[in-house]
């Protein structure tokens, strides 16, 4: 599915801090980037962190074939992401790509994208790609508070945007999974979902009840990211599958969710 895998030193064009815990790295390649697909990810080497031994996987948040850049939306979790957050313009970053499969086109033309927390990372790229294929996109994202919300404007360019906040300071109060859209009679040809496992399972469950097709992107911990270590597996109805190769995108049917 994905093309030849490459290891390259990419140059940091921009390190944009969105809020205390999120930032976007814009990275430019020395050679023509492959035609990335939404859902694919990269493996990043964090050089200057003593406690970061393995590479760190991040989804493609944005891909600009003209500028020959990719954008990663990163949430600061531990040592590795903290170090990445300190990168400055001009720094180099060793990156492996393209990795993983990708989201697929829906049968119809009307879809819902659901993202919780940093799970929004692959959704922007997906939303833009779907829009290019003339699919009508509704995007539902969940946040702690109004102040945490970022990039709403760019999502608005792709379709309708629904929001939940835990304290109700914008959109509906609560979690994404309790948004009224799931109780309404609106229906979709597919739901795409990224976020914590529990959230994805809840969405998958609601989709199933409504008979809607659902694709999720898993974030199993990885040692290699290119299919050799067998550490990232998930059970599916056709046996253990590698999230880094046969995934990260799976239909919830395959997963038996």
């Amino acid at each position, binding site marked *: 599915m994905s093309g030849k*895998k490459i*290891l390259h030193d990419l140059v940091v064009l921009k390190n944009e801090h969105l809020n205390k815990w999120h930032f976007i790295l814009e990275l430019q390649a020395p050679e023509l980037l492959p035609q990335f697909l939404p859902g694919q990810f990269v493996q990043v080497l964090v050089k200057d962190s003593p406690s970061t031994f393995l*590479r760190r996987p991040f989804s493609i948040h944005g891909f600009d074939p003209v500028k020959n850049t990719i954008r990663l939306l990163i949430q600061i979790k531990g040592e590795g992401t903290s170090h990445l957050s300190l990168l400055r313009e001009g720094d180099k970053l060793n990156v492996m790509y393209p990795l993983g499969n990708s989201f697929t086109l829906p049968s119809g033309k009307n879809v819902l994208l659901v993202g919780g927390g940093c799970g929004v990372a692959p959704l922007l790229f997906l939303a833009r790609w779907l829009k290019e294929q003339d699919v009508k996109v509704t995007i539902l994202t969940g946040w702690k508070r109004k102040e945490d919300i970022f990039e709403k404007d760019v999502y608005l360019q792709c379709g309708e945007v629904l929001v939940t906040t835990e304290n109700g300071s914008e959109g509906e109060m609560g979690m994404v999974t309790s948004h009224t859209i799931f109780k309404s009679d609106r229906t979709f040809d597919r739901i795409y979902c990224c976020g914590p496992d529990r959230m994805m399972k809840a969405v998958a469950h609601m989709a199933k009840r409504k008979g809607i097709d659902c694709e999720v992107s898993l974030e199993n911990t990885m*040692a290699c990211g*290119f299919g050799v270590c*067998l550490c990232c597996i998930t059970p599916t109805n056709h046996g253990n599958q590698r999230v880094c190769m046969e995934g990260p995108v799976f239909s919830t049917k395959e997963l038996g969710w």
Partner: protein
Amino acid sequence: MIDLSIKIGHLNMKNPVMTASGTFGYGEEYRDFLDLGRLGGIVVKAVTGNNRDGNAYPRMAETPSGMLNSVGLQNKGVDYFVKEIYPLIKDFDTNVIVNISGSTIEEYVAVAEKINELENIPAIELNISCPNVKQGGMAFGTISSTATEVTAAVRKVYKKDLIVKLSPNVTSIQEMAKAVVDGGADIISLINTLLGMAIDADKRRPVLSTVTGGLSGPAIKPVALRMVWQVSKAVKVPVIGMGGIMNATDAIEFILAGASAVQVGTANFIDPGVTMKIVEGIEAWCGLHKVGSVKELVGGLIS
């Protein structure tokens, strides 16, 4: 011209750099990153008698300068290997060695017999040390009499080079080395992973589904070097060293400690092209130190 070639047992290798079982798949996934023909050898991942699903997720934990894994020998069994995998790998221009594992002596023997029939597989590596599988694995590699027994049983049916891979989770690695030589091993490789554990304090849970797993990476290099040194002095058969090799200097340390060849494991995950850099680095090091042939370095520690 520096001569990097080495002969171990009947294996002619272009250079002493091999890849370690379980970290290199069947070689296929690495084709984007390197020319397999430039490797001394590749050891494909463990093959067992029947299909094994391996352990449940999570199977991995990152640790300081290393990682724990509890993959648990996931593979589709020897018949699948012979029919589906072997045709894909048999014409690689390098020594393709099959790592075999089992829960019973009969299983080891059955797998070895089938691999013995494969013309383009010049050797097997007997994994008597995998700490992930409750039955079998642990015991074979940590009790010397059992190690002799399983080696001898396989020796009877396997006609080509028999490599036995030792577990480091023992009081005396020399005793284990002697035990497998007594059983008929042609070559010894070591070390497999150290048994370790990781805990997620916030969740108050072990990270791995199996609680314990195998530690690999640079963290274990000092233990690995020590064991390679001890074993190479204790037995006469050639030794293949591994454990935490990340670069050419690490590889040379193992060779100086007594290894005739080395295997690179976890490092492949971080830099899938690392083995090529190691081959080139050994060559450059020999040039700098006026060493004409890498053979001169084997066990060449001044002490």
